[in-house]
């Protein structure tokens, strides 16, 4: 292998890394990486757009600095198995409508007061084979939640009218 082809490979990898980062920034899912002290390492474009908090501001800060309603002991408990057992951990909108109070993506035509969220915590294994960071993914579930709530309301109405 010539030195120029090695150089090209390295350049290709760098370019690939660049668009991979772009992808993480632009994916329509919230991505937050944090360590055992809940200090934020990654805050992607979705999180920035919906929270208005810049990645440079929140980086290396505990999540609770910007979101005091997310209690550290609760979150630590939640991610303990992710760090220790390397299993995924979940929060669904049914159990907790949202983790981050973001505005509904469609403020005018959707009646939901905020963005319903599903949250997944997934372990990130380092090159050393240890889990030092957790990747938190936030999914916008507003449409599903709204339809399910409407359906439930209808079922209750139907049931009540059949009883009377």
């Amino acid at each position, binding site marked *: 292998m010539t030195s120029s082809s090695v150089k090209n490979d390295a350049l290709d990898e760098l370019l690939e890394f660049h668009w991979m980062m772009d992808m993480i920034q632009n994916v329509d899912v919230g991505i937050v990486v944090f360590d055992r002290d809940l200090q934020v390492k990654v805050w992607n474009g979705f999180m920035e757009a919906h929270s208005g908090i810049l990645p440079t501001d929140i980086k290396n800060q505990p999540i609770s600095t910007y979101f005091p309603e997310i209690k550290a002991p609760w979150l630590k408990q939640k991610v303990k198995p992710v760090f220790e057992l390397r299993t995924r951990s979940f929060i669904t909108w049914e159990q907790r409508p949202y983790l981050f109070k973001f505005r509904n*993506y469609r403020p005018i035509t959707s009646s939901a007061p905020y963005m319903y969220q599903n949250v997944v915590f997934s372990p990130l294994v380092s090159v050393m084979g240890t889990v030092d960071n957790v990747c938190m993914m936030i999914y916008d579930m507003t449409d599903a939640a709204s339809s399910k709530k409407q359906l439930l309301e209808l079922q209750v109405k139907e049931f009540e009218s059949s009883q009377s």
Partner: protein
Amino acid sequence: MLSVLICDDSMVARKQTARCLPQDLESQVHFAKHGQEALDALTAGKGQLLLLDLNMPVMDGYQTLENIKSQALGVKTIVISGDIQPEAMQRVKDLGALDFIKKPVNSEELRAAITRHGLFHEEELEQENSDLNELVRDCYQEVANVAMGMAGDHLARIMNVFVQLPIPNVNLIEVSELHMMLSDIDGSESTSGICQGFLGDGISGEGLCILSDSSFADIANIMGMKEDIDDHQQLELLMDAASLLIGTCLSGIAEQLDMKFRQGHPVVLGQHQSIQDLIKANRNAWKKTLAIEISYGLEGYKVKCDMILLFTEDSMDLMNAKLAHLLED
């Protein structure tokens, strides 16, 4: 030829009323933004029929009626108002108004009223209170104009047609009256619509793209689809058109504001429905919205496509700040 003067402080309302005039009535329509303008127009001989709103700045409807009476301006007046208290109706009739029509106006009622008073032709005005100052509105209009041009250009290149660019309509409207501003789509016609949320830098809103169902055959034709198109294909066409229009228009606006918008996933509002059924706005959360309406047409085709960008009320301060440089002398 009947000379009709529509007096209302809202542009949307004036337009709405003008649209409700019977199609087969030969008329010349004049507009006035308040009572004083109406009196000036009447004095200048414009207006045999006056369609008058009651709540207006400068001079309201009651004062206008008083002046018409005292100056003996021989105009026939029909009041169109959202204030439908019996007292209001009685007062305007005492002041010489021939009839009273409640808002929102519809063409049947208007036709009936004009016919009843032997004019056959009557105009009705729908009023919306706009708090936008002229300069700011002008500024948004210009921004929309540039963005619309870009979107039209994309559309023209992709479809290989000539796109007729209208003047964008910029208004601060009540969320509940959203469907009324969709001027290019007949209330009786069925429509299909897509909406898409967007946000960036604390500015948020939604883009709506509404196509009248009669447009699909022509669009399919332009896109080179020969066979009859079914619902799925219609939806695909609508989705393509919406992504194109909303996407390019938003990026045009973002560029001028020196920012970026993040677009959510588009949502189908409905297919083959009336405008009223299509748009059920979140009335509780927002009272007013800044609406930029652009009605696209394609030369030589019967395509009617309305694109509306709606910004939440609380986005406006930020947008005004970003547009401040355009307002400087």
